[in-house]
């Protein structure tokens, strides 16, 4: 029974990984660009949630929305002021831009919030639910389910709506999209907004149950890379499966090997994947 509980817990956390990873994969699919600051977006989402609760009060709905909206805005601003310009530049500029951004955000957060581990105050989502003998904290259950719903929602947005097809048109062929009257710049800004927004809300959802500090972004950033590599670059459903798998593997390795091994296992998986199948497990060979 304990094992089953570990598995469910892992999957619920994995659902949140899936949510922020789908943002990273969206950017990659749109513009062949890896955002090294993606984990920092998740971290910022957590602190936006904290600030919202502290200064505005309100429950999980309010602070999750606040994190999503704030990060959506940050994503668009970063695209317009930085990414748009370095896209045309050399590879070094592309890699350095978001790498520098990650450092800037991470250490600015250290500067402002200190390195202390903090957590959100108890919310209405406290308590334990018993699902067929498996005991789950209410907060994790709700967060996991919401994360899955949002990830599927993002996928539907991309595949079933007009705005989604415009996004994909830009990803497919920038010039052809321009001839069709789509402005690639706007679509890419939107993609950055969506990516950062999904990272922000994922951060807020995680902050409900887990304590955090400014350094968490680094781990989440790498986790997202693993998910994107595993799921195939640019595939949202791939990121969903991969997020769940990573959450599960992490939970199991923590359970069997000890907590310190959970990150090693993820990084080792990543290294192995890049070696064996750089195009991703579910991605198409190019």
């Amino acid at each position: 029974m304990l094992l089953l509980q570990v598995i469910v817990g892992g999957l619920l956390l994995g659902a949140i990984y899936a949510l922020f990873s789908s943002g990273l994969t969206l950017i990659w699919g749109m513009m062949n660009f890896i955002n090294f600051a993606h984990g920092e977006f998740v971290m910022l989402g957590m602190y936006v949630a904290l600030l919202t609760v502290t200064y505005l009060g309100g429950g999980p709905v309010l602070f999750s929305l606040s994190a999503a909206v704030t990060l959506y805005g940050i994503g668009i601003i970063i695209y317009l002021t930085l990414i748009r310009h370095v896209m045309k530049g050399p590879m070094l500029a592309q890699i350095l831009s978001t790498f520098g951004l990650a450092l800037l955000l991470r250490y600015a957060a250290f500067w402002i919030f200190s390195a202390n581990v903090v957590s959100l105050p108890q919310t209405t989502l406290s308590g334990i639910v018993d699902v067929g003998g498996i005991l789950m904290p209410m907060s994790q259950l709700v967060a996991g389910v919401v994360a899955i719903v949002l990830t599927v929602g993002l996928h539907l947005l991309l595949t079933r709506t007009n705005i989604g097809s415009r996004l994909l048109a830009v990803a497919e062929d920038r010039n052809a999209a321009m001839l069709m009257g789509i402005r690639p710049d706007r679509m890419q800004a939107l993609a950055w907004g969506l990516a950062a927004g999904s990272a922000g809300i994922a951060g807020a959802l995680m902050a409900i149950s887990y304590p955090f500090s400014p350094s968490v972004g680094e781990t989440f950033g790498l986790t997202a890379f693993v998910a994107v590599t595993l799921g195939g670059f640019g595939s949202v459903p791939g990121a969903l499966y991969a997020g769940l798998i990573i959450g599960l593997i992490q939970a199991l390795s923590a359970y069997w090997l000890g907590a310190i091994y959970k990150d090693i296992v993820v990084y080792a998986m990543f290294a192995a994947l890049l070696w064996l199948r750089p195009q991703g497990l579910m991605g198409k060979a190019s």
Partner: protein
Amino acid sequence: MSRNVKLGILGLAAILLLYPLLFSGAFALNVGSAVLLAAISASAWNIVGGYAGQISVGHGMFFGVGAYLPLLIYQITGLPPLAGVPVGIALSIILAIIIGLPAFRLRGHYFSMATIAVAELIRIFTGTWEYVGAAIGLQGPAVGRGWWDLTFRDETPYYYIFLGVLAVVLYVTYELQRSRFGSYLRAIKSDERAASSLGVSVRMTKLKALVLSAIFTSIAGSLYSIKTGFVDPESGFGILVSVQMVIIAALGGAGSLFGPLVGAIILVSLQTATNTWFGGGGSGLTYILYGGIIVLIARYEPGGLYEYWQRISPRLWRSRRAA
């Protein structure tokens, strides 16, 4: 090389040689050797990152291996730490080959991701491995048993050792730049497909560059741990170790001979200044500054100061001649 450039190099060499005589305080010497060490590792990174254009963000793995081995050999065998330097180099070469063979199938962002992942894997693993001191790290001989332990109370010997190593690294880079190998690296950076159509064996050439770069980075790590007599996972393999090499090279000019040295002079001075002004809390600010500088370079001058100089210097000469 033009006469002006030659004069500039001679001037720079003279300043570096005479620096300990001009500024004899321990603080100034400490800053001086920190600049040299940063310049060594950034110049080493420059071979694969600057010339070949393969942006490694995990070079800390070679620095860390180089830093750990001398102290590990000392702790296990009691031999002088110096004996661990070649072992560190050998391990770094092996590591470079293991990374390079598969990772050089990966291009651009993928390669950067792979290098970060491996460096982080090694850092976390080292932090849990008791044999190499886990999170606490390793220490060297507290008191030197002879000159061969390289534990000097005075900073001056370290300064000159670092200067000598830097001279070697720069000389090798200079020779490389003028050779077939250097020409091939720049061709690969520009267009791999075109390079291979002209007979360049792309993967092999990149691998050679990575191995050469790893050797010098490993030596930089050894110099660091022998001088400080201490290393832990963060100071050896930490992501900031890797980042520092990239930012210094990029600031001065990735793919230029003296770019990393110029970058090191500026960045280490800046870092020292923020640490002095803001005390112990300054280190956080240093990294904010790092991040800011990286973003600004990427946005406005990806070629670094070298490219900037190339652009403005003809104009300067012209205006001087006109005056």
